[in-house]
């Protein structure tokens, strides 16, 4: 479990290991799926969809205490809003890197 998530979720759920594990499991699988969605949106040049997926990742990351992922998602949203392929690619990679630790 990613350390920042573990700390955050334990604090928020009073150390209830069962709940923390369930939520973290859901977070990890959802983020992986969203990154796949984001990659597909980027490849097809669908900036609107990319922005929307990044927004969802940001929300989920904040709910799970994953600030690194949330920061990458915020940056990706900005790049997608500008239609900046280079920056979008960079932050998509940052998101993928952050997901590796999950």
């Amino acid at each position: 479990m990613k350390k920042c998530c573990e700390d955050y979720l334990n604090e928020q759920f009073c150390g209830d290991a069962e709940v923390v594990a369930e939520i973290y499991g859901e977070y990890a699988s959802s983020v992986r799926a969203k990154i796949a969605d984001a990659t597909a949106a980027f490849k097809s040049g669908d900036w609107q969809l990319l922005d929307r997926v990044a927004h969802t990742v940001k929300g989920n990351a904040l709910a799970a205490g994953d600030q690194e992922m949330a920061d990458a998602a915020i940056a990706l949203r900005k790049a997608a809003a500008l239609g900046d392929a280079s920056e979008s690619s960079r932050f998509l990679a940052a998101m993928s890197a952050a997901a590796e630790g999950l």
Partner: protein
Amino acid sequence: MPGTNETREPQRGLDLRDRIAILVVDDEKLIRLTIGARLKAAGYYAVAAASVDEAVKVMKESRGGFGAVITDIMMGEMDGFVFRDIVRGIDPAIPIFFLTALDPEEGSGFLRRIMEDPISYYLPKSVDTRVLIQRVRRVIASRRVELFIEKKMKDDVKSLELAANIQKSMLPVRAVMTPRGFYTTWWRPMDVVSGDLYEAVPFGTGCYLYVLGDIQGHGTSAALAMTAVQSFLKHLVHREGNPLMSPAQVANLLQNFFRTNLADVSYMTALICVHRPLLGNVSWISCGAPDLVVVDGGKSLDINPDHRGGLPVGLMPDTFYTEQDVVSTPLSRSAACICFTDGLFELSHDEDGSDKLPGDLARRLGEQLTAAMREDGSMMVGPYRFVHACAESGYENVGDDTTVLVFGAHLELDGIYEATLPLSPDDVDKASQELAGWCRQEGWPDGDISRVQLVLEEKLMNVHDHGFNDRDRLHAVVSLRLRRRGGAPELTVWDDGSEEPSMRVTEGDTSTTFDKANIEMRDHGRGRMMVRELCFGIQRMKYAGMNETVYHIKTGDTPGKEGMLE
């Protein structure tokens, strides 16, 4: 803490009575899980919905059972604000929390949109558990307090309305006309219940004892005292009903009642009058109340130059009223006596009551109206016309309980038939027969008499059936006046029931579709069609709660008016 599974998905036939339930709407399972688990740990019952459709379905099934809704703003198929509109259609008062990852600094204006609704709130998706629970708890608690207060106020209003109905049931009927005399009243609480009372007790030949009282203050305590005094007066009549009882004796009996039962609770100003129309006399005593006003020939008479009268009833424990406090006033048959509580002078131009009805205007209006009504036979609605005239002069804000009582001898006016009767089928039939007898004495053609009777009976039965509820109908009275105007019968009916007719009939339907409608509408007010066939004009107006309907009835003697409609 157990796992979150229990609270995750909506269930059929939700029973949300035991715990406060919160609906969590988000298309992201993770959010539903995290929020649901936090709420559940805080003792709430969290119900999750993954879509707007699901949320709406659950809300409808719960029948208002949710304490709050927590929803995302950006959901797949629908904007959270559109969802809010749907929620408001189901539950206009439920608090809605918008949980969003949107940053207020992004400038999307979502905070402004949240605040467009007074019971919508913002929560960031990164919200700390303690903050989330604290905010939810506070909002739900304050909403519950508001709902409790609203319910309590509604209950209080219901109780007051019940009290008002009890008060009304204790008052004598609004107006009475006998062959000797008449009285007519206008009684209005400032706020549902009243501290004003009146009693009218018949005795002897056309004689009446009138008591008009004004308990100090208004509202519930004054209304309770009013009810006690009104009960005492009814009891007094049965126990002591002495036709020769003087106003001072009645005042002393009331004084004893206050001293015994309402000492240190309240006191009452009162005007007590004994009217003997055969003797042409009224003897009266004012116990701190406005003096009796006697209007004759359009002028109010100076009837109490010595300023006789006494203190309010119950104000001082040792008050005793004597015959020296009583005024005896001779009355001509055309004179009208006006009693009123001082609430009359609380009628005002302004909501705050700073510009109140001046005495000279009230006197002038009273003189003019009394003279006019005496001449045209509309005396029985005198108090209503008076209050209406005050309102037309701008004095329409009621600042206190107000009662006006007018009485006098019955005048037979040339060419005018007047009656005031209870609203029962038997009384209606009797009135119709009496009216026909009067018309025959006046030499009216039989056709006119039949038409007048038909119109009258239809109108009165319509008011009986549709103008009052079952309770008020028992106390309802109507007044009527019949005369010829321009050669045709003119019938005026005054009632204080609902002004809504049983059925609306457009003018154009009248003659062409009468026969057809008569069959089709036999159970739904066909009489109204009939009345329109019998009349060439019908005028309606409402003033101070009184309906006035004037029927211009067709006549064989005035063929030019056949078929005319206004």
